């Protein structure tokens, strides 16, 4: 996506952020292209939120350089960066009305009251909260607060919008709806979105590219399909989507070439008469649209997911496990 001639929206070079002994971020290199919807995915404590805060300017790097649209950002305070944030807890000002919250960035810049409130109402209409301007944040639901936070962060037309687990506090249905809306909004505005989440489904479904974080480092960056289909390490295979990680000693038993491998559960097919290794169904979980099996093949256990329409096997049944030739992905190390 990034060509050398264009300036990336955000560029990290060997960035580190240490808190005393703790290396929250430990040498991260990163290029986020302009207009990209970029997800930073990882478990809690993996350094993704610290990276976001480094872009926002709430944290300063202990080492390395950060560029935002080609300009060095080290030492630049948050209020002089053309970057805005949607906070995890939304951080709406409780003593201001919704419209005043949205207009805050304009108020600070000295825009007249009538003008900034008109602009705020425009932004509120954009996030479908047209008639909520007079309310206080405490009178809104979680989903509505989230939209207000979004409108407030977008009113200044930032070059980069940072979103810190923005959907974390919403219930499942609302979350799925907001995922679609955020994606649509990002397309129509063309603003670079950098989005932190620990939910791999969210990252895969929304982002143009995903960076997977572990222990203060990026372990893999790529399009969602690349990260999911071709996990580079055991950590990515396991954290993103869950996978069967096959260690080298098990590889030969499962008729794979030497090395460590990952096979996604849904890539494996079960059949009574097949060519693959023979195993025995240990357990079966009915999950509506799919069935989840654990199949024991000799000493190894494979997790298998099949579509609901296919033949069901009961625990104890003997089955052959098969997979397409391109399903196994070789893991590093």
């Amino acid at each position: 996506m990034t060509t050398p001639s264009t300036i990336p929206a955000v560029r990290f070079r060997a960035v580190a952020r240490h808190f005393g002994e703790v290396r929250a971020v430990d040498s991260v290199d990163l290029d986020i292209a302009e207009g990209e919807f970029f997800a930073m995915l990882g478990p809690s404590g993996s350094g993704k939120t610290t990276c976001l805060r480094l872009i926002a300017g709430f944290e300063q790097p202990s080492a390395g350089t950060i560029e935002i649209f080609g300009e060095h950002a080290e030492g630049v305070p948050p209020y002089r960066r053309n970057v805005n944030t949607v906070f995890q807890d939304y951080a709406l000002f409780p003593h201001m009305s919704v419209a005043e919250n949205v207009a805050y960035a304009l108020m600070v810049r000295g825009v007249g009251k009538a003008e900034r409130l008109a602009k705020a109402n425009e932004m509120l209409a954009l996030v479908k909260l047209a008639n909520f301007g007079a309310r206080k944040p405490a009178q809104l639901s979680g989903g509505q607060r989230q939209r207000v936070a979004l409108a407030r962060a977008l009113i200044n037309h930032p070059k980069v919008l940072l979103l810190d687990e923005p959907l974390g506090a919403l219930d499942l249905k609302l979350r799925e709806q907001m995922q679609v809306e955020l994606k649509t909004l990002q397309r129509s505005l063309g603003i670079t979105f950098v989005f932190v989440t620990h939910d791999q489904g969210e990252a895969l479904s929304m982002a143009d590219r995903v960076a997977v974080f572990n222990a203060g480092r990026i372990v893999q960056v790529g399009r969602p399909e690349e990260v999911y289909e071709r996990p580079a390490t055991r950590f990515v295979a396991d954290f993103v989507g869950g996978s069967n990680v096959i260690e080298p000693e098990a590889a030969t038993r499962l008729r794979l070439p030497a090395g460590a491998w990952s096979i996604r559960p849904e890539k494996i097919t079960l059949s009574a008469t097949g060519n693959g290794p023979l195993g025995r169904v240990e357990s079966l979980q009915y999950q509506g649209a799919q069935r989840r099996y654990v199949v024991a093949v000799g000493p190894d256990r494979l997790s298998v997911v099949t579509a609901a329409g296919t033949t069901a096997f009961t625990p104890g049944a003997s089955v052959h496990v098969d997979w397409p030739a391109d399903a196994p992905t070789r893991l590093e190390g």
Partner: protein
Amino acid sequence: MSLAAPGAPTRDGPLRRLSDLFMRRPRLFLALLLTPPLLWLGVAYLGSLAALLAQSFFSIDEFSGLIVREFTLKTYGELLQPANFDIIVRTVVMAALVTLFGGVIAFPIAYFAARYARGRVKALFYLLIMLPLWSSYLVRVYAWKLILAKEGVITYIADHTGTRGLLDAWLSLPVVGGPSLSISYTGTFLVFLYLWLPFMILPIQASLERVPRSLIEAAGDLGADARKTFSTVIFPLALPGIVAGSIFTFALTLGDYITPQIVGSSTLFLGQAVYTQQGVAGNIPLAAAFSVVPIVIMGIYLTVAKRMGAFDAL
């Protein structure tokens, strides 16, 4: 008792039955809980306040010195005579200055405690704020009299740092000066400031404690520098605490009759006036009228504060 969990203690005995009753009737429990304090508040507290208010509408017979129990506004007329009105103005100005300076000094301390102090430093903060309250109020005021006296440590320090001229210049000023710090309004002011500072710091600290860090970061994120963040986010959210602290400081200064008697010029403050009128002079109605003044002033103050939206962030 088929619903009882296996192994649960059997339900009998009067205490257990009482507890079951409260469980079923939470309102009854609440009523029992609130009756004693409400009785206390109603009878001992509001009752005596009402008696005080009533007294202020009586008058004293100038010849016999007896209280005439008839409604009259004569006592309030007396209150507005220049000599008495001066006492009110003097006390209100003093209370306002103590509150203002108290707020200015308390805020940075409270801000540090709420936003930066952690663990042991925070414990030390509470200790240092509370420590003065452990010793007698009288002892502390007398200690201050010695500190401020002409032979006291402040004069000593001024002598040895070459700032004696400055001190004398201050003391030679018309209203705030006097023969020495301990016999001047400046002295009274300093002691009040010292005495009531904890009551200013603690509510402000509590209100700042409730401002999430993300709000301050959000202000910066949206383009507000430190000054703008303070005036648009931190200060408005700390305002309920500031108002609470100022109510303490203001009301305590208005009512104090010991400090100005020990440290200060011989002019009277409100509390002293009440003390003198009801004691030596035996003019209970005028004492009561004097006592109504702080109540009215606080009422006005709270109304204005509410109008200005000081409690919006509560």
